[in-house]
């Protein structure tokens, strides 16, 4: 794991000192809200429906035990005893008082964390595959690249006031677990035919009101050219991107309006100039960063206790069948801890749960934790013989739900329960869907299914990428929920298509239930997933289930 240098530490401390003074000036009346708002947003502080919200960056979703413990302490001391993990692998505290925020930021600085660039029209927290460094399908760990981008983009003077926010994601595998093509720039680490390392560069992806999948800008970019190349993309966007209309200001619109070929030509022209400006210091830095992400020393010890428990305990068996992913070392597993207990708020963890996860990481997980964009927590390196103990400890605090990748493993944005931008609630819909299918005991029968819920058009809940997407809007003075079908956020990405008119709050869960029963009837066999069945059959039979004939005739 990368540790701050003295330079990094001084930078954050100085920034916190500035913000403390800005808060004092706001409270004294020396700054107006209009003057203060961009300053607080630059430090991750929003004002929402019921309170301030502080969004803390978790670079590429990587934490260690000490950082997780600090988040728990902040939740207890200054908030309401919990944190909310987000689809950008960050954590949000929903209840801080403005006057406490400088102390919270100082507390974060103690463990090399901050809230800088978690808001505003700048380069945001770089996300990465949450299985980074552990997955058995990995070409290379994407986190050194993400860290290089983090250092390059932090307080980058040229890109502090972009036309709109700008999001990077990095993956190191053919399998995309980071929704790469929904990002302004997506980087896929790969090897070319000469076995050289480099990146496939996607540009112009994004969700929101105009969802678009990123397009390939460069099929193969040599690894050493990364920073001059992405800097060239940003420069082209900074000049060409629209500033007259914030809904048309993202690079996806710039790419759409100018065409990918024209953007490519401009980027390549810039790149020819930029490349010389990077005199190799970036590569020296990258080499240093890579050393900080060296893999832990894995143990070759027997896994008999794991196999014995699997054979004797069906609950443990179900948990390990559902929540484990293949690790690059055969005696290890990647364990996803579900923050989606049926009926719970997706992404919320209590301070007690955070402390337990921190302790498990320290004791059994090489002191590593990851936050996934799917709002779960990952222990990336657990020796299989330790899984029984980890499971028992998780079960004590309500963290042993066996539902990863299933219908109740729902992404939900905070929605109108917290967010000032929301047009409808999303969390209670997720809670009700999870409880309903748990009550029906159908979850494992249904199999792999991704439901993603957003409470407004901005799509923080990635609804377009859900096999079933739900978008909450206001219609006629009440909450109304539109369903999209067939979205996919992986390497076979597609944008979900709207199925038809929206459903009122009380009708959305029954509508999802009709969809699921239709799928169970329509699938070839239990191995055909919802998405596969949808791609085979198209929208018609699912639409028929959503809108029974009587209802359609009445419209």
């Amino acid at each position, binding site marked *: 794991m990368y540790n701050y240098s003295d330079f990094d530490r001084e930078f954050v401390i100085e920034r916190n000192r500035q913000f403390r003074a800005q808060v004092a000036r*706001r*409270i*004294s*009346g020396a700054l*107006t*809200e209009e003057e203060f708002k961009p300053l607080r947003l630059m430090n991750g502080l929003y*004002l*929402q*429906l*019921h*309170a*301030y919200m502080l969004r803390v960056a978790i670079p590429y979703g990587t934490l260690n035990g000490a950082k997780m413990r600090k988040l728990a302490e902040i939740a207890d001391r200054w908030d*309401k005893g919990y944190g909310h993990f987000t689809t950008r692998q960050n954590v949000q505290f929903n*209840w801080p*008082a*403005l*006057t406490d925020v400088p102390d919270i930021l100082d507390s974060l600085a103690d463990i090399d964390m901050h809230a800088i660039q978690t808001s505003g029209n700048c380069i945001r927290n770089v996300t990465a595959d949450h299985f980074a460094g552990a997955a058995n399908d990995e070409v290379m760990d994407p986190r050194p690249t993400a860290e290089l981008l983090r250092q390059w983009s932090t307080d980058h003077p040229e890109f502090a006031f972009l036309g709109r926010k700008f999001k990077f994601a990095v993956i190191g595998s053919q399998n995309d677990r980071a929704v790469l093509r929904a990002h302004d720039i997506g980087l896929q680490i790969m090897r070319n035919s000469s076995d050289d390392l480099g990146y496939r560069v996607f540009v112009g992806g994004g969700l929101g009101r105009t969802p678009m999948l990123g397009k390939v800008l460069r099929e193969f970019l040599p690894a050493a050219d990364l920073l001059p190349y992405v800097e060239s993309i940003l420069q082209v966007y900074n000049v060409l991107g629209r500033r007259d209309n914030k809904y048309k200001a993202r690079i996806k619109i710039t790419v759409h309006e100018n065409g990918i070929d024209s953007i490519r030509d401009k980027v390549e022209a810039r790149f020819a100039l930029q490349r010389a400006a990077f005199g190799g210091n970036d590569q020296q830095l990258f080499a240093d960063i890579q050393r900080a992400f060296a893999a832990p020393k894995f143990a070759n010890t027997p896994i008999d206790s794991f196999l014995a428990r699997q054979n004797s305990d069906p609950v443990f068996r179900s948990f390990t069948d559902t929540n484990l992913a293949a690790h690059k070392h055969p005696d290890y597993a990647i364990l996803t801890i579900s923050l989606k207990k049926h009926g719970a*708020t997706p992404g919320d963890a209590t301070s007690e749960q955070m402390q337990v996860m921190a302790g498990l990481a320290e004791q059994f997980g090489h002191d590593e934790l990851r936050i996934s964009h799917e709002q779960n927590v990952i222990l990336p390196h657990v020796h299989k013989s330790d899984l029984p103990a980890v499971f028992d400890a998780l079960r004590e605090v309500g963290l042993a739900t066996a539902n990863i990748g299933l219908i109740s493993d729902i992404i939900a944005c905070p929605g*109108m*329960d*917290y967010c000032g931008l929301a047009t409808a*609630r999303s*969390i*209670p819909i997720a*809670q009700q869907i999870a409880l309903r299918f748990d009550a029906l005991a159908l979850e494992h029968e249904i199999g792999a299914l991704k439901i993603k819920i957003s409470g407004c058009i901005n799509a923080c809940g990635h609804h377009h990428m859900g096999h079933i997407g739900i978008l909450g809007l*206001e219609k006629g*003075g*009440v*909450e109304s929920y539109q369903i999209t079908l067939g979205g996919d956020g992986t390497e076979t990405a597609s944008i979900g298509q709207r199925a038809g008119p929206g459903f009122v709050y009380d009708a959305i869960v029954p509508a999802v239930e009709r969809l699921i029963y239709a799928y169970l009837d329509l699938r070839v066999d239990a191995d055909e997933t919802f998405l596969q069945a949808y791609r085979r059959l198209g929208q018609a039979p699912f639409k028929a289930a959503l809108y029974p004939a009587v209802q359609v005739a009445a419209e």
Partner: protein
Amino acid sequence: MTRPFTDKILTANHLQTGDAIYWAADGWSRDVAAATVLRDANSAEQALTRATNQPQTAVGPYLAEAALTADGSPYPTHFREVFRTKGPSNYHHGKQEQAHV
């Protein structure tokens, strides 16, 4: 043609705590039932102007549609504003769960 004025309340967030607050007879209140009902455009505009001039207490004051209960207390009519009086619905833990201060 201008639309006829309908009853309003004036609301904002408290600068230091972020709490939802309501314009009331004796200053700002966290209790919507104590909010002053603004029954015509003039009084609404005056209240908004006065609230805007209190930036050290209130952030982002705005008018919200309101109606009256049988006992004459105001309540907001839009669901967003109703949520602001109640706190999050995922589980009950908002500041609104605490005694009004």
